[in-house]
């Protein structure tokens, strides 16, 4: 592996780890706050999958960095300006509709992105994708069912779901942006060319929203910046909470 590719792959694994840890953390905030006990369990399950992915991506990033850092250094010792997650993942959990719509957007994204990552020439990335694909299949079934039930449920649930779709839509464009690092890896057959996934994502999401009697928004706005560390105000607070114990006891084992 050339140095340039190695460095890009490390950056890429870090980004994917950041996406996973941030979304996993947000989902974990639902535990004991769900609408009924079965949902507490389901949220815990999904959060666990994402934290597991984060650990695999970070461990790989640490291996490539080869500078003595481990998965926790990646998660706990970088600040918000160094995090490279997509903005969609860091938005606060909001109400149940908001979290489920965000989940649907993410799940459809991973449904398309992971099979491509499975084809990666990088064996580790491919292996992580293989495990994640199985999880995402279940995640999507759940978020799709929920969006259908909320969209086509009561007047109130419909309104909440529509509001969530409208509020989140502008954060979905960034999911399909490519920069030099990702282009380099896509050309090398290592990373996924996410730009090519947007049409299929739109098609799948639109079909589900329409079945849920929800309106697919016009593309009138887009917020970007997660991949360059230009975040919303929410991430700083999230990381403050997440990192407090770890950073209060420097160098300790847990």
């Amino acid at each position, binding site marked *: 592996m050339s140095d340039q590719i190695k460095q890009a792959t490390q950056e890429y694994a870090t980004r994917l780890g950041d996406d996973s840890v941030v979304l996993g953390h947000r989902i*974990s905030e639902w*535990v004991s706050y769900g*609408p*009924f006990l079965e949902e507490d369990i389901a949220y815990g399950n999904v959060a666990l999958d994402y934290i597991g992915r984060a650990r695999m991506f970070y461990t790989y990033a640490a291996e490539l960095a080869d500078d003595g850092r481990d998965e926790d250094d990646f998660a706990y010792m970088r600040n918000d300006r160094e995090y490279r997650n997509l903005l969609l993942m860091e938005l606060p959990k909001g109400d149940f509709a908001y979290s489920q719509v965000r989940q649907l957007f993410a799940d459809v994204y991973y449904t398309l992105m992971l099979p491509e990552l499975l084809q990666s020439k990088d064996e580790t990335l491919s292996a992580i994708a293989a495990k994640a694909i199985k999880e995402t299949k279940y995640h999507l079934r759940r978020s799709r069912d929920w969006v259908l039930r*909320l969209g086509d449920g*009561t007047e109130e649930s419909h309104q909440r779901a529509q509001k969530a779709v409208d509020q989140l839509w502008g954060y979905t464009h960034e999911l399909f942006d490519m920069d030099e690092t990702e282009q380099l890896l896509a050309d090398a057959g290592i990373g996924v060319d996410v730009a090519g996934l947007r049409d299929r994502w739109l098609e799948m999401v639109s079909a589900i929203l329409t079945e849920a009697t929800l309106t697919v928004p016009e593309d009138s706005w887009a917020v970007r910046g997660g991949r360059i560390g230009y975040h919303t105000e929410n991430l700083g607070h999230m990381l403050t909470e997440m990192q407090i114990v770890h950073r209060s*006891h420097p160098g300790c084992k847990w």
Partner: protein
Amino acid sequence: MTTPQEENFMRKISAEEKIEPKDWMPDAYRKNLIRQISQHAHSEVIGMQPEGNWLTRAPSLRRKAILLSKIQDEAGHGLYLYSACETLGISRSEMIEQLQSGAAKYSSIFNYPTLTWADVGAIGWLVDGAAIVNQVSLQRTSYGPYSRGMIRICKEESFHQRQGYEAMLALAKGSEGQKAMAQDALNRFYWPALMMFGPHDSESAHSQKSMEWKIKRETNDDLRQKFVDQTVKQIEVLGLEHPDKNIKWNEERGHYDSSDLNWDEFWSVINGNGHCNRQRVEHHVAAHDEGEWVRDAITAYNEKKRAKNAQHAA
């Protein structure tokens, strides 16, 4: 005078046969079981809160994953137990109502606050540890569905206890700050964990009848003694100080002697005046109320679907 039904019931109890949902049982047996199983289910559910308090601050990804899966198991235990209790003719929503109104109790231990990360370790080790001592004994309880639930739950609880102890061990063998955190958690959770076994047998309102019916298999004081005995060695291995200065091996009894507990505090917390009693119930009520529109949405969606299917069929 005993009826033939009562006689048959007591014959099964004496022969160690399980009582099953469709069998005849005395009303008081049924009531007693509903009280105990629902209390147990509520404890699993409310217990998610003090541990959930540290989910977003777990100090490593590994610990975060372990804690997530532990809390998930507990919610699962809550589900089995609610189901076991439903076989006695009460619905989950009635049980939840009783929890929220205060008519049903949950384990008083969860009214103590979790103040540091070490409390998560202490809960796994001491609270789940005390629960296991009790639950191992309940695997032989006379009511079939409860007994089978307990067998399943015990397997997962012993994993919880191990992870809790292992988390404490990491702290106790760590930095000075970590060790101090572990000692502090032990000092705070040791006594309430002992109180989890309930009042002295002489003061326990439900004990006698429960023993007779073999709902309970061992007395509060006997179970507590087991826990006291097994914990001494565990504290030694951690290299922490025992919170009970009077702990002393009694050769004659073959058990450790220990200080008497602060029962005033016990009753005060049971009666609703602990640090977190109000907070725990309010949290449950708030989440439940906020979830109402979601539950309504499912009902509405299912009705629409049913109507559509009926139309197709017509």
